[in-house]
């Protein structure tokens, strides 16, 4: 099912949680709503599920205007952060419950629930109570319960945040597998950029209720729309050094020429030079010099911290060169993963 959001605004008293949000979500895709806490992503999800109604704007499911339609009529499946499995019902009863409400005959109910249980791999524990399951198993049951009535849209609200790190990776792959097998349009809310990057067809990145960028995960990483997007994505976080534009050159605050060039930016504009750790090249012929702070070996990679433009930054360097503390090295940048943003507005110049 295709979803169209038109100029959605949601205000709580004086507080605007979502502001002028427009997006289209293609049928059968898994789209992640990503952003730090308080960015309005859960509010957005609640408006999609019909738990909240927008103050302004329209929501369309295919061609139906569902803006003010109540939840149960929308045909959605919802998975909560803490799963909200009914503790007094067995796994089977939990999965059956949405069908029971729809007055599906008991025999068919159980049949469909068992099929769902197989899909999410909990068929061996149908008679257990949720309290007897591990977090990952509860998660699977919650997904089965959301999917059993064959919703047009599956909504997942931070479904992995209660799991430990290893299980989280396993479950996000499971969610992707289940989504691909059923082909259900899915919206996934998370604050974890790695989770979002690994699972989604598209990511919607939000900040303070405003959509920042809506793109494929890799594109979000390679071509961030603004400084916030660049800061939010990537591990280790992107390096940021302050500077000023002079004649198209980005001059660092310490007076060095960063060798990065921008066009059509007035002289004297304060900027951030942001670059990914993998975009740094150790190049002793380069006139741009930096001082090594330390190197640390992390598995197959060597990450070097060095001081550039008065800031400590990090880069993946050629591991053959053994760098020592306080050693002066030459630095240059690759063509990709290097950006220039306005210091104030975060607008991207390069």
């Amino acid at each position, binding site marked *: 099912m295709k979803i169209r959001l038109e100029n959605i605004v949601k205000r709580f008293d004086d507080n605007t949680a979502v502001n002028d949000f427009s997006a289209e979500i293609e049928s059968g895709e898994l789209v992640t709503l990503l952003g730090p806490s308080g960015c309005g992503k859960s509010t957005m999800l609640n408006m999609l599920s019909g*738990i909240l109604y927008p103050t302004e704007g329209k929501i369309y499911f295919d061609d139906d205007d569902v803006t003010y339609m109540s939840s149960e009529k929308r045909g959605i499946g919802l998975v909560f952060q803490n799963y*909200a499995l*009914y503790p*007094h019902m067995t796994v089977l009863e939990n999965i059956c419950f*949405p069908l029971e409400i729809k007055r599906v005959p008991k025999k068919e109910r159980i049949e469909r629930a068992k099929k769902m249980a197989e899909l999410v791999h909990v068929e061996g524990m149908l008679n257990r109570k949720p309290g*007897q399951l591990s977090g990952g198993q509860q998660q699977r049951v919650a997904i089965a319960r959301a999917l059993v009535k064959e919703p047009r849209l599956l909504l997942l609200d931070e479904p992995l945040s209660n799991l430990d790190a290893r299980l989280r990776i396993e479950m996000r792959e499971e969610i992707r597998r289940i989504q691909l097998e059923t082909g259900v349009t899915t919206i996934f809310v998370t604050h974890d950029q790695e989770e979002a990057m690994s699972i989604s067809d598209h990511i919607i990145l939000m900040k303070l209720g405003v959509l920042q960028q809506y793109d494929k995960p890799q594109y979000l990483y390679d071509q961030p729309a603004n400084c916030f997007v660049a800061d939010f994505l990537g591990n280790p976080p992107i390096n940021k050094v302050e500077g000023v534009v002079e004649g198209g050159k980005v001059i660092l605050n310490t007076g060095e020429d960063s060798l990065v060039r921008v066009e059509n930016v007035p002289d004297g504009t304060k900027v951030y030079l942001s670059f990914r750790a993998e975009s740094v090249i150790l190049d002793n012929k380069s006139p741009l010099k930096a001082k090594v702070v330390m190197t640390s070996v992390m598995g197959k990679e060597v990450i070097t911290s060095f001081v550039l433009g008065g800031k400590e930054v990090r880069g993946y360097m050629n591991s053959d060169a053994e760098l020592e503390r306080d050693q002066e090295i030459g630095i240059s940048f690759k063509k990709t993963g290097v950006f220039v943003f306005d210091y104030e507005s975060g607008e991207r110049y390069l």
Partner: protein
Amino acid sequence: MIKRPFFERIKPLLYLLPFIVSVTIFTLYPIVNVIRMSFLEGYKYLTGAYTGIGFGNYQKVFADPYFRQALSNTFKYVLIVVPVSTVIAVVLANLLNQKIKFQSFFQTAYFLPMVTSSLAVGLAWRFMFNDKIGILNYVFSLLGMDTIPFLGKSGGNFLAVAIFGIWSILPNTIILLLSGLQNIDPLYYTAAKVDGAKTLRIFFRITVPLLAPTIMLVVIINSISTFKMYHELFPLFGGPGVAYNLFTVVYYIYYEFRVLTPPKYGLAAAAAVLLLITVFIFTMLQRAVQAWSRRERGEDVKKVKKHRDEFR
């Protein structure tokens, strides 16, 4: 281990002493004494003399038609008041738990019986129950129904005391149930509503089962307190109904001990012990039910861990 000085070792006991002393004097000693008294035949309270030891008092108590009537009245009272008050309280607590207008007004109204003197309120009920000037019978006559002689004999006064009893235990019951309701994660309701569940289905399939442990607790606590029914009789009838038709077990104890001359201490003690045993059985039942409900919810920590390990 280093041996601590004597005073250090007995210090905890000193802190506990006031409690131990008062419990011993005012709780343990009377219990033991009552049990002892129940086995002494022909016991004289003042002289301490008795004629024999045995189950004679129990035999007499069971043979006493007054006691049988007291027992049947008490059970009837428990069996009516507890279920009815529980059902009413569950419904009212559920309503009070909703976000409604004038919520605090309703809460105050329902909790009023708790903060007022039961004697004063009982007298007010006595007026309401009155055949001639009472509002209840007035309403019945307006509705074209037969009036009920609430304060007379023939079962009418049993109804009156049952209504008064239900009304008096509602506030405590509602408070306990409300706290149980507030422990239910509202997310369960949201989840059910998103799936299209209506109010009644949510109430019976989610609220009531999740509240079941609290309901069980309330039923048992109320059973224990209604078994001891006694003081409700005084403001309404000034005694155990008309011609003793509302004898209850506690009133029987009081009657044998205080009203009769000469008092039959042994019978009173035996009846008291029988009541103690009944209440004790209920308490045990409560513990068993609570343990069962914890197991039902899979809250048995060891078991949960075992399951998790199996599936790792």
